C-alpha cells in the first residue's frame, strides 16, 4: 500500500490537532498548513497522497486552491477531501465543478473522516 502521507490545509488549530491525532494513530503521516496563501506551493513541496482542504481559509479560499491544483497536470488525480463549515448546497456544487473527490460538512464524525480517507486512497491506488 503506497502513500500514507496526508496534507491538511486548515486554519483552525483545534481541528488540525484533532485530525492529526486521528490519522496519526492509524499510521498516517500528517503535514499541515494553516493559510490559504502558499497552499499550492505546500502541496508541491510535500507531494501528499491525499489532500484535506478547508473552504474558508485566510488568504485564499479552498475552492480557488482546488481549481489551481486541478489545472496542474500532476495533481489532476490527487484525491482531495474538502471540509466546509458553511454547508450550503451551492458550496457542494461549486466544489464538484472544481473537481473535488469527496465533500464533507463540519462537524464530522472521526470514523467518517477515516473511512473517507481510506476510500479515497484505495481508489487512487487502483490502476
Amino acid at each position, binding site marked *: 500500500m503506497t502513500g500514507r502521507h496526508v496534507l491538511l490545509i486548515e486554519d483552525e488549530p483545534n481541528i488540525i490537532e484533532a485530525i492529526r491525532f486521528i490519522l496519526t494513530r492509524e499510521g498516517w503521516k500528517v503535514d499541515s498548513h494553516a493559510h490559504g496563501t502558499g497552499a499550492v506551493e505546500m502541496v508541491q513541496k510535500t507531494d501528499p497522497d491525499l489532500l484535506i482542504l478547508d473552504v474558508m481559509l485566510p488568504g485564499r479560499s479552498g475552492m480557488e486552491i482546488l481549481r489551481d491544483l486541478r489545472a496542474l497536470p500532476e495533481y489532476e488525480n490527487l484525491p482531495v477531501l474538502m471540509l466546509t*463549515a458553511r454547508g450550503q448546497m451551492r458550496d457542494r456544487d461549486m466544489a464538484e465543478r472544481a473537481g473535488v473527490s469527496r465533500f464533507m460538512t463540519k462537524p464530522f464524525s472521526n470514523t467518517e473522516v477515516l473511512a473517507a480517507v481510506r476510500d479515497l486512497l484505495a481508489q487512487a491506488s487502483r490502476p
Partner: protein
Amino acid sequence: MASFNLLVAVCLGYVAILFAVAFLADRIAATGRGRWLRSPLIYTLSLSIYCTAWTFYGAVGYAVRSGLEFVTIYLGPTIVMIGWWWGLRKLVRVGRSQRVTSIADLLSSRYGKSNTLAICVTLLAVIGITPYIALQLQSITLSFATFAEADPSRGWADVSSGLWVAGGLAIFAILFGTRNLDANERHHGVVTAIALEAVVKLVALLAVGIFVVWGLAGGIGETMARIDASPIGEWNVDPGRWSAITFLAAAAFVCLPRMFQVMVVEIDNERHLHTAAWAFPLYLFLMSLFVVPIAAIGLDLLPEGTNPDLFVLTLPLSQGREDLAMLSFLGGFSSATSMVIVASMALSTMLSNHIVMPIWLSWTGSAASVSGDVRSVVLLARRVSIVVILALGYFYYMLSGGGAGLAAIGLISFAGVAQMLPPLVGGLYWRGATRTGALAGLGVGAGLWLYTLLLPGLGGFIPDTMLQQGPFGLSWLRPQALFGITGLDPMTHAVMWSMALNALTFVIVSLITLPDPIERLQGAQFVNVFEHSTGLRGWTGYVAQSEDLLIMAQRILGTSDAQTLFQREADRQGARGHLPEPTPDFLERLERNLAGSVGAAAAHAMIAQIVGGASVSVEDLLAVADESAQILEYSSQLEAKSAELSRTARQLRDANDMLTRLSAQKDAFLGQVSHELRTPMTSIRAFSEILRDTEDLSPAETTRYAAIIHDEARRLTRLLDDLLDLNVLESGQVSLNMRAGTLAQVLDHALSSALAGAERKMVVHRRPEMENVPLYSDLDRLAQVFINLASNALKYCDADRPELTIRVQIQDDMLSVDFIDNGRGLTDEAQTLAFEKFYRVSGEKAGGAGLGLAICREIMQRLDGDVTYLPGQGGGAFRVTLPLREGGRGIDAAA
C-alpha cells in the same frame, strides 16, 4: 305760412319715401341686380352720417361763437380720408376678414375674443353716444319748435315733443335696422336710404347757402364784405385747441360706432375707399362752404338773441321762404334721423351681442346654437337695445335741459369715443399690444374723460368748489387743471390728458404683460392682415383656384396621391387632361381627404382660404389651434407614458438588484454564522469522540482535550450571545437602562473586567482628573463598549510592552473617549472593514467571531453617539463619542 300739420305730414311723407327706398333697395339687392347699390357713390354718401344735425345746424352756431374753429370738425375726417386711407383700408380688410359686427367686436376679437373688453367698449360707446343722441333729439325738437312758433295756431310743448321724436326715431330705427338678423350682412336698404338723406341734406344746405349769398347778400363780393365786417372774419386761432379738436374729429371719425358701421361693416368693396378718399372730403367741403356766409348774414339780418344754431332754418323763414325753410328742415331732419338710425343700430348690435345675449345665455344655460328660438331672442334684444339707447338719449336731453351749445355736446362725445383709438391703432399695427394693456388704457382714458370733461360739462354733478379747488382741497386734482397745468381751455386739457395717459398706459401695460395664445394668433391676423387674406376683389377665376388647390393638396397628401385625386375628379367632370372645376362636390371630397391628414378644421380653413377668397374666421383658426393642441397633447401623453414605463422598468430593476443584494447579504451572513457555529462544534465533536473512543490516552492528553472542549464550548456560547445581542440591537428592540454615574466609574469597571486574568500585561495610562464627568446613559452598555475596545487592544496590540492610553475630551457637549494602543494599528483595508460583522484582522485567531466592533457601533448609535477608528495616532486607536446629558432629562429610557 305752412301749418304745423303740414310739417308733420311732410315728415311722415318723407319717412315713407325713405322706407320705400330702403325696401326697394333690399329687394333689388336680394335679386342680385342693381349694381348701383354697391357703387362707390352710395358708399361715400353713406359716410356722410358723420354730418349730423350737429354739423347741419350746429356748424353755423359754432362759427358764430368761435369763428373759423368749426372747420376743425371737417378737417379731422378729411385728414384721415386723404392721409390715412391705407390705414382705413387695413381696418376695412381686418373688419371684413374677421367678420366683425361692430367696433366693440373688432377690439374684443383683436384682444383674444375678450368679452370683458367688448363690454367696456360698449359701455364707453353708450355713455359717449348718449349725449350725441340727445343732441339729435334736441335739434329736431328745436326745429319743430321753430316752426311751431312761426305757426301760432299750434301750441308746442318742448318736453312732450322730445318724447314723440324719440319714440318715432326708435320705431324708425327698429323698422330699418333689425329686419335682418345677421349684423354682418350689409343693410343695403338702410345704406341707400342714408345716401338719399345725404343728398337731401347737402342740397338743402347748398340751397340755403345760395339763397343767402345771392338772394340776401347780393353776390359773392357783397358777402365777403359782410363777413369781413362781422367778428367771424377775424382769424382767431388757438393752435392747441385747433389741433386738439382736429385730432378729436379724426379719431372720432374712425372710432364712432356709427362710422365704423358704414365704413367697415357695410362696405361692399374695398376699392370704394379709393373713391371715398377724395369724394368724401369733397362732400365735407361742400357742406362747410356756406357756413360762414350763413352765420355772417344771419347775424346781420336776424334780431339779436336768435339762436345761431337754427340760422339755417330761421333765415329762410324770416324772409318768408317757407319752401326753402321746409327743405332746410328736411335736411336737418335727415341729418338727425340718419345718425340716430345708424348709431342705434350699431349700439344695439354691441349691446345685444356683448351684454344682453351673454347674460341671457348664462341665465337660460342653453347652447349658443342659432335655433329659431335664439334668433327671435336676438332680434328682441336688438329692438329692446334700440329703445333703451333712445330712452337714455331722451333722459339725457331732459336732464341737460337743452341748454349747452350743440357743438360742445358733440365734442364731449367725440372725446369719449376717441379713447378707443389707442387700442384700435395699436391692435392694427403692434403685435405686442395686449388685452390687459387695452383695458388699462381704456380705463384710464375713460376715467379721465369722465372726470375732466363729461361730469364738469353736465353741470351739477361736480360742485363749483371742486372745480376751483380740487377734490378734498387737492388743487392738483382739479378736473380742469390736472397736475397744476392751468391756462389750457378745458377741451384741450381733457383731450391731452386722457389721450396721452390712455396711450401711455396702453403701451406700458402691453409691454409688461404677455398676450395669451389666442391674442397672439389674433394679433398676427390683424397686423399682417394683408398677408393672410386675399382681399375683397372677388373670385380670381376657376382655373387659378384649381391650381392653388392642387398645389396645396400636393403639399399635404403627397404629389402622386393629390394628382390621382385631381385626375379622377377631372374624369368625373368629363375634362380628362385638364384640372377639374372646383365644384362644391369636388371641394367637399377634397376637404374630406385633407381632413384625414390635417384635421377637419384645418382642412376647412385651407380650402376656405383658397376658394372663399378672404375669410378664415377666428373660429376656423381656433379650431386649427385646438386640433394642433390635441395632437400635441396626445403625443406628449404618449411620451409621458413611455417615460413612465421606462421609469417603472428602472424601478423594477432597482428593486430586483436590491433583492439580489439583500439575498446575497443574507446568504453571506448565514454562511458566516454557520461557519462560526460549526467550527467550534467540529472541535468539540472531534475531541469528544477521541475521549470516548480512545482507551490509551495519557492523563495529560485527556486533560488537554477536555480543556479544548471546554474552551470551544465557551466560544460557542459567546458567539451565540453576541449574535443574539446584535440581533436585539439591530432590530431596535433593546431597552436601555439609563442611569447616572461618572465616566471614571465606568472606565474603572470596564478596564478591570477586560484586563483581569489576562496572560499579557498591559500598561494603561489614564488622567483621572479628566474622568470626573457626570454621565446619564446606559452605563452597562457603555462599559460593554469600553471592555470590547480594551480587550481588542490587549489582543491585537503587537508591541512588546503593550500600552493603552485613555484620552478624554469634552467639546460642545460631546464627550469623546479615545482608546489608543502602541501597536501598529489597523491597515487601511482593516480600518474600513473593522466595524463589519464577522470581520477579523487577517490571520488572527483571538477567539472572537468578529462581531465585537459591530456590536459596539450598534450600542453607541443607540446611545446617540458613535465609535470610529482614529487613523494617524501611531497605533490602534478608537474614539467613542457620546452626547453629555444631565441626569433625569435625557433620552427616552425606552428607546
